[in-house]
Structure formats: structure tokens, C-alpha cells
């Protein structure tokens, strides 16, 4: 469990060892207090915009200023919580992004294993190609994708759009997954192999459990990207009842309609909830968010 030992218990070990060290060796430096204050100041800056969103969503004042409301109201939530604006688009989003993330993660894991473990002349060109393609703005390819989807009759199809979303997230997913897999040492794997386990068994039983943080990072990264993707589903789905929340959110939010800050904020919160929940659930399984960096090393 070499890797687990270096990644997961970060929460516990580092501060415990770091703190006594400083205390023991030197006078109690003001350093630590400064560090704490500094970090709290950064947190404050970070939290302000989030705070504004929370306040604006229940405030009766329609303002971009961060101000305490005269009265609290749930009208904003009432206004957006209906089938057309929220429920159906959110369900579509969950279906599209959920399945697409699943496909991306599973396919990336499969692809990452040979890329991380075996030598081949094709490996490096393949890796570089997918690495470079992560810089491509996906909006650029949507015109040919549309034509292609029309030809193969995948236009306006949820599964088709799901597969495209999955494919568009794959380059980054594979690359990241492979990097994490590189951090998993071979010792245990070899032991399992000596016992006669096949490559896939080794991958699933030995390697994956050791790189859970990496899988979580890829999962969240993929899901966030898809959840916010507006253009792909907008182009590939025609029926309004199939469109995910990102499409209306994008129009809604980028219009900056100044008469509806409250509703926009309420909508933003509802729209962000699934991603936040996903993060909380996945990171809880790893004992807090600290281990998410996993073993991504050069």
C-alpha cells in the first residue's frame, strides 16, 4: 500500500509532524500565526463572490452590490423551480453528463493502462497527439460534427450526444489518468502477476484501488467540463425537451439581464448543486478533499 500511505493520510500526518517540529526546534515563531491570517485573508477574497450569490438568491434587493437584504425571500427560487426551467433540463443534464462521464472514465482507465505499462513505438506519437488535441476549442469542430450526425442519423439523439461529449473529454481524461497511473508502483502488480492474475484483473483489483484519488480528479474534471458545456448539446439536440440545463443557463447568465439578479443567482445555485454534491461525495470517500492531488508527479 505504498501509494495509499503517501497520498491519503495527508490530512493527518503532515500537520502533526510539521507542528511539533517547529515547536520543538525553535521558539514558537509568529510565522504560523502569519500563515493562518494570510490564508484566511485569501479565503475571504475567495468566498466573497460566492457569498454574493447566496445572498442575492434570497435577497429582495436586486443589486450587484454585496449588501444585507431588508427581508429574505424565496420568490427567486419559486420563480425558477418549475419543469421547463429547472427540473427537466437538470434531469437531461444528469443523464447526458452522468453517462458521458462514466464512458470517459472507464475508457480512459482502459486506455491508460497499456499506455502507462507497456513499451511501444506508437505510444509516444499517440500520447502527443491526444495531448495537443486537448488545446482545441471544441466549438471549432461542431459544424462538421453536425453534418456527420445528420448523415448517420444521430442528430437529436441523447445517446449520440452523450458519446460525443465522452469522446471530446477523452484526450484530457486519458492523459491525466495515465499520469496518475504512472505514479502507482509496480511492486504489488508484479506480485499479483506472479499469482497468475491477468492484466485486466491486475488493473481492476490492484492498480485502480491505489489510484482512487486520480480517478476522482478525472471524474470531477470531466463532469464539470460537460456540465458547463453549452455549445455541444445546443447544436446536436434539436428537440427543446431534450436540452440540458447548460443551454438555458448559458443564455440566461451571459445576457446579464439586470432586472433578474435574484433569479439568476437562485438558478446558479441550483445548477451548481449537482457538481458540488458529486465533489463532496467523492472526496468524502477519500477522507476529505486533501488527497485529490493524488500522485500526479512529473
Amino acid at each position, binding site marked *: 500500500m505504498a501509494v495509499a500511505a503517501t497520498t491519503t493520510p495527508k490530512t493527518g500526518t503532515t500537520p502533526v509532524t510539521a507542528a511539533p517540529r517547529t515547536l520543538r526546534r525553535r521558539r514558537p515563531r509568529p510565522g504560523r500565526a502569519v500563515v493562518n491570517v494570510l490564508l484566511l485573508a485569501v479565503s475571504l477574497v475567495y468566498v466573497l463572490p460566492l457569498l454574493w450569490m447566496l445572498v442575492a438568491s434570497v435577497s429582495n434587493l436586486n443589486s450587484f452590490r454585496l449588501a444585507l437584504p431588508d427581508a429574505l425571500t424565496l420568490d427567486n427560487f419559486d420563480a425558477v423551480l418549475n419543469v421547463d426551467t429547472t427540473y427537466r433540463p437538470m434531469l437531461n443534464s444528469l443523464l447526458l453528463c452522468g453517462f458521458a462521464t462514466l464512458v470517459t472514465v472507464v475508457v480512459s482507465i482502459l486506455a491508460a493502462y497499456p499506455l502507462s505499462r507497456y513499451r511501444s513505438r506508437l505510444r509516444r506519437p499517440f500520447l502527443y497527439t491526444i495531448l495537443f488535441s486537448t488545446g482545441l476549442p471544441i466549438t471549432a469542430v461542431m459544424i462538421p460534427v453536425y453534418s456527420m450526425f445528420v448523415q448517420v*442519423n444521430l442528430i437529436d439523439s441523447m445517446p*449520440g450526444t*452523450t*458519446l460525443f461529449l465522452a469522446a471530446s473529454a477523452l484526450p484530457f481524461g486519458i492523459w491525466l489518468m495515465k499520469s496518475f497511473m504512472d505514479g502507482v508502483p509496480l511492486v504489488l502488480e508484479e506480485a499479483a502477476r506472479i499469482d497468475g492474475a491477468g492484466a485486466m484483473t491486475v488493473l481492476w483489483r490492484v492498480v485502480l484501488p491505489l489510484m482512487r484519488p486520480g480517478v476522482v480528479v478525472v471524474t470531477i474534471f470531466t463532469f464539470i467540463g460537460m456540465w458547463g458545456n453549452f455549445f455541444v448539446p445546443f447544436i446536436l439536440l434539436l*428537440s427543446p425537451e431534450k436540452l440540458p440545463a447548460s443551454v438555458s443557463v448559458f443564455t440566461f447568465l451571459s445576457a446579464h439581464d439586470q432586472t433578474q439578479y435574484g433569479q439568476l443567482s437562485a438558478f446558479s445555485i441550483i445548477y451548481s448543486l449537482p457538481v458540488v454534491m458529486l465533489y463532496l461525495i467523492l472526496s468524502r470517500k477519500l477522507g476529505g478533499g486533501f488527497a485529490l492531488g493524488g500522485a500526479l508527479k512529473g
Partner: protein
Amino acid sequence: MRSKLITAAAVTAATALAASGCSSGSSGSSSKSIKVVYWQNLDSTSKLQANFLASMVKEFTKANPGTKVNLVPVTASENDYYTKIQLMMRSPATAPDLVYEDTALINSDIAGGYLKPLDAYTAKWSDWSQYAAAAKTAVTGASDNKVYGVPDNTDTRGIWYNKQLFTKAGISVPWQPKTWADVLTAARKIKSELSGVTPLNLYTGTAGGEASSMQGFEMLLYGTPAGDKSLYDASQKKWVVGSKGFKDALDFVHTVYSEKLGPSVSDALGANFGTTVGTELIPAGKLAMDIDGSWMPNNWSSSSAKPWKDWESVMGEAAMPTQNGQAPGSTSMSGGWAWSIPAKAGNPDLAWKFLESVQTKTNSAQWNALNATIATRTDVASDPTYLNAVPTNKFFTGLVADTHYRPGLPAYNQVSTAIQKAMESVTTGQASVDKAAATFDNDVKSAVGDDKTVKGTS
């Protein structure tokens, strides 16, 4: 393990194909059903058209049993809406049977080969003669003179002014300027008499988009002596560059912003300033004059987000004067939307039949009254229900006589962007009027080609 995964992949693929097979049925159209695509904005008026069309569909399917009309609203920004319908119109499998477009875009889509000429239909439709000539021009192909759409609404532009502020500044109301100079005189007077009040809003800059071009610049440009030939000379089929009128109009913009007769430059150049003008500055009595559209009351009606019931008594309307008061004395710009049938539509005959039923006199009047737009049918324009729907309808309908439509050409988009850039640079003072005009000339030449431009004579 591996075989399980392969099975899973196969199942996924199979589901995808099966589902796509199902969906293909809904995207095409059979002989008894049509697909109608329109733009649904997310603002307070979002449901107006949806509800209106739904009632039209009900009426139509009742009169024509066995038919089916699928309404497909597209929720997106205006530009993304166009991207989407243009993609849909590229292939027979996804092309709608009826599509709703801004008239400014129609010529572009004609050139793209997306639309079907409707002459065969209009020839047999007696109501067609009721449509105003200018409105018909807006939906006529520039190169082949064929009709490509039925316009269902238009708009005009003029000067909205605050009568209370005018009286306070000592300007008598009702007020009707005769020349551009009259407008500036009034603005200067307000600036010196009233503090905390912005004298005049003139939309400017690229963030304002088409509002800057149309409400801001073209309201000036088409009022110069060259009139209808000030931006595009239809007889020569060439874009006008290097004209004196263009510089005069830019100079007006420069005067407004350099003398601080307009909003602060940073506000004016911000995205969405239009909403601020309509929902905040005007109702709060902080803006004395606003060159804006006939639709402004939509901001203040009881169904809007911030109703303002005093607007009828506070706000006055004046026509935009021509530069020196030359004939016809006033000018205006018009846009509007129209229904068209795509070239690759599966069921154009039924689509036309539905369109006819939506565009009867009664239904047109109802629609124009409902969304506070100006009528395109002359019989509707004199209809009391329409005229009484919004108190300003009579005034703005009157402006139709001297209105102008933008050149409905594919290149207009790029020319419009060039106009906005020129405006922005004189608004900020980054460039002189001469330099901004020269940049505009270059931009236009590189967008449409040297041979498609002509030097303006006035």
C-alpha cells in the same frame, strides 16, 4: 473482465443506434405535419410568442383535421439561434418547414441557398396586397427580386424624451427638433440647467451590437442628404465609403460624448447598457432624451419585471430630424421579423397554409398588439384594437412613411461591426473623426472587396 467491458461497449453502441433510429422519425416531417422553428428569448416576454403560436396551432388544427404542427422554440442568444437554424436548414432531414428570422438576415440566407421563393404562393394570396411596400422590400431577394418571407412585424425608431425634465430645463413641450443642431441645443440646455441628468443617450460601441449601429448611427446616417444611399447604393450595388455624411454622423457621436452630453463613456460602452436605459435611467428620471425604438413601452408595461405606470404622462415622442431639416424632414430605421420556408422543407404547402392562417388581418392585429410591435399590414395599421393597444402605436406607425431598412445583404454584418468600431473609437476619443472614418473605409473594403465600394458624393 475484458469480455464484460466489450459487452458493455456493444450494448452502449446498440442503444445509441436504436435511440437514433427512434429520433429520426421526429425530425423529419410527413405530409400531414409541419415543424415550425422560432426564437425564444428568456426575458420577460419569453412566453408571448409561444402562447400566441400555440393558440394559432389550435385554431389551425381544428380547421384542418388530421394535420399536426410541431412548435420548436430555440432558447439561445440571437446569434446562436441563427447558427442553429442555418445548420438545420442545411439538410433535408433537419430542415424546418417554417422558420422565423430577422428580416436583416433574410438576404444572407437567400445567398446561402437556405430559403424558398414564395412568389407562387403570394401570387394567389389576396392578403399580400395589404402589406406595406417597405416591409415587402425587406423580404425581397436583392439579386432576384423574389419574395422570400412574410413579415409579421416591424419597428421604428425615434426620440423618447422626458417631458418633466424638459419643462424643468425650460424647453417647451411638445418638442419636435427640426435639425440635428436642435437636438444638440436641447441637450446642452439640459446639461447646463439640470445636474445629475444625462441629456441624451445615443447607443455606441461594439458591446451594444446592432443597437449601436441602428439606433445609434444609422438614425443619423440615413438622415444625411444622401438618405437611402448613404450606406449602400442599391442602384450600383456598391457600399458607400469616404462620404461626408458618414463623417458628419461620426462627428455628431463625437460631439455628444466629448461634450459629455451623453452617458459616461464607460457606461455607454458596457454590455447590456440598453437594459439599464430602459429599466433604470428613464424610469428614474435620469435621462432626458433617448434615441430608441418603438418597443420601449415593453420595459414599463404591467407585465414587465419593473412596471412603471407613469410613463404615458412622463414620456414624449419626437421624430428624428434629418441633418439640416432637408426633405422629408424626419427619418427612422426599421427592422422586424418574418416567416420563411426553407428550401429543403419537407412540406412547404402545408407550411404556407399555416402561415396564411397566422397572418390573417385579425391574427396579425392580435400579434402586433400583443408584443407591442408595429404592423406590417396597412389594414392592421389603421385598426383601432391595434392602435389602442399601446398609446404610442399611432405615433410610431406614422414614422413608417419615412423609414429606412438596412441593406439586407450578407456583408451587412461585417459593415455593421465596422460602424460600431468607428463609433467606439470616436466615443472614447482614441481616434479623430477622420481617422475613424478612414479605418471604417478600410474595414469595409477588406470585408466586401475593393470593387464593391463606391466613394460617397455627399
